[in-house]
């Protein structure tokens, strides 16, 4: 295959990837978009094989074997993974892209002629920079994603782990990284190459360890973005337009998602990245206040909702933890049968990754046209009879609107308190991620339902059914 034809085909595959993302503008076109993505990938792989023309048994065995191993592991994982584990799966996948980028850079470094980036064993200076950047970003993505995976999967505490002088350490490492990138550019020495990789691995680790669990939506999006920039870096090395276009798409996609998540928390990107915010087990902020809360039973809740006209359900991370989405949909079905209008309100940072709640509700067969984003539904709470908050806390806290001294002041929140009655399913009185009390719990029109989100919903279903 001629190089020109290959370049055109790579361009086609890049364009198909754009179409794949375009498809996601609506659920109706999304499946077709995914097909475009797969086609683009197939074209890129076949073009490369036609261009490289592997000769002999060993390369073909390695290629087919490698693809087969990937297909089996990837396929089984994709089939078996429960939807609630999607955040950690995405983090794990990011780590693979990062590591693959490091390996491709290493392969290019040890066989530059195969990639056409060297003359007489001397790698072009421009390629050296691209290679170093690709490897560095890939390595940061790898260890960062591994930490994110461990935190999301609960194998590591979600609480921020703060090293003393961590900012100083990071700055020193960052400077050392720049120094060795320059060294590699200057000398093409393998020592410099592997030092770049090692320092970047350490940086990825240190950058993510201090960031708390509920900030993971930002981190996962950010790593998504990094994996894109790493791919783009390698794309420049290989002069491959499919890689460059994809890298740019993925890079900007992740950056936009991080921005949306930060806005959803009213925090600056920098403050999230600096870490140290919040802790999973902030515990009840005992201020000596022992005002009584109104506690209700499943029967009370069922009775009130059955007689309501409109119920807006606000799911949060607690619903994901308890896997309560199916019971919740059943509850909505019961209510709809009794003539109640049911809608769902999703806060942009509910859960542990962008769109987390939407996927879980979709899994439970909730039609997507009953699910609304914050800005589309916030005005409707005033007309709603009941706001049913299941496993969410901070995103409903009126302090964000009313109390300028609150740490979450200014954060966009779901205005559930405007509904005639607010119900909270919670395991206890503990505060949310931000570590602050939610004044709503003590209001007269609030009914607290203490218990596991799934069990409580099932009990409500029993008395509704």
């Amino acid at each position, binding site marked *: 295959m001629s190089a020109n034809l290959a370049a055109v085909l790579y361009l086609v595959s890049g364009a198909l990837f754009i179409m794949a993302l375009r498809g*996601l503008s609506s659920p109706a076109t999304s*499946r077709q978009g995914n097909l475009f993505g797969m086609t683009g990938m197939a074209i890129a792989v076949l073009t490369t094989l036609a261009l490289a*023309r592997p000769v002999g048994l060993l390369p073909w065995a390695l290629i087919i074997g490698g693809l087969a191993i990937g297909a089996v592991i*990837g396929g089984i994982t994709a089939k078996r993974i429960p939807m609630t584990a999607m955040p950690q799966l995405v983090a794990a996948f990011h780590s693979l892209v990062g590591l693959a980028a490091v390996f491709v850079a290493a392969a290019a470094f040890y066989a530059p*002629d195969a990639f056409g980036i060297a003359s007489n064993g001397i790698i072009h200076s421009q390629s050296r920079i691209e290679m170093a950047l690709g490897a560095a970003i890939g390595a940061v993505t790898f260890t960062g994603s591994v930490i994110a995976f461990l935190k999301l999967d609960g194998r590591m505490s979600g609480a921020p782990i703060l090293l003393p002088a961590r900012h100083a350490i990071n700055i020193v490492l960052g400077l050392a990284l720049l120094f060795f990138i320059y060294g590699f550019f200057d000398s093409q020495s393998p020592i410099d190459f592997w030092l770049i990789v090692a320092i970047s691995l350490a940086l990825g680790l240190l950058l993510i360890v201090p960031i708390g669990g509920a900030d993971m939506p930002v981190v996962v999006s950010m790593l998504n973005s990094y994996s894109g920039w790493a*791919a783009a870096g390698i794309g420049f090395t290989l002069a491959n337009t499919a*890689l460059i276009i994809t890298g740019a798409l993925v890079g900007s*996609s992740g950056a936009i998602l991080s921005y949306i998540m930060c806005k959803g928390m009213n925090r600056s990107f920098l403050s999230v990245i600096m870490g140290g915010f919040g802790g999973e087990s902030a515990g009840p902020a005992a201020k000596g206040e022992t005002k009584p809360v109104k506690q209700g039973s499943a029967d009370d809740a069922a009775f009130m909702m059955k007689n309501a006209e409109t119920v807006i359900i606000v799911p949060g991370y607690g619903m994901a933890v308890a896997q309560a989405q199916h019971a919740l949909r059943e509850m909505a079905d019961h209510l709809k049968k009794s003539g109640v209008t049911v809608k769902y309100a999703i806060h942009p940072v509910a859960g542990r990754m962008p769109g987390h709640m939407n996927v879980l509700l979709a899994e439970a067969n909730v039609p997507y046209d009953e699910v609304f984003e914050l800005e589309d539904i916030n005005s409707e709470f005033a007309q709603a009879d009941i706001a049913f908050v299941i496993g969410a806390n901070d995103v409903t806290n009126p302090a964000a609107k009313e109390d300028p001294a609150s740490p979450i002041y200014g954060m966009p929140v779901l205005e559930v308190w405007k509904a005639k009655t607010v119900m909270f399913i919670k395991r206890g009185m503990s505060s949310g991620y931000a570590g602050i009390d939610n004044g709503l719990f003590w209001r007269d029109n609030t009914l607290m339902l203490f218990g596991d989100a799934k069990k409580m919903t099932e009990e409500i279903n029993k008395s509704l059914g």
Partner: protein
Amino acid sequence: MEQLAHSIDPFISLLGIFVLAVFVGYYVVWNVTPALHTPLMSVTNAISSVIIVGALLAVGAGAIASGSTIAMIFGFLALVLAAINIFGGFMVTSRMLAMYKKKGK
């Protein structure tokens, strides 16, 4: 002018593609409905594994000819990782997208 056009480094045209693709990505991604942000992440994950072309080059083309076993090993490892991502990423995305249904179904 003719001569000027010929003397432009190919890197510049790649940079041009890159910059334009960043803009395309910006507008396309803002159009993605928030309900599909999780599939967006998994599909971007899958497509960023197009880095597999680098792995294929390392394993298939010159690495063996040029006798670099190290490059071949790295290429093979990258190939496996990227392949996991490609198959896993696209399959999990289609599994998720299959769940999004409209009312009345």
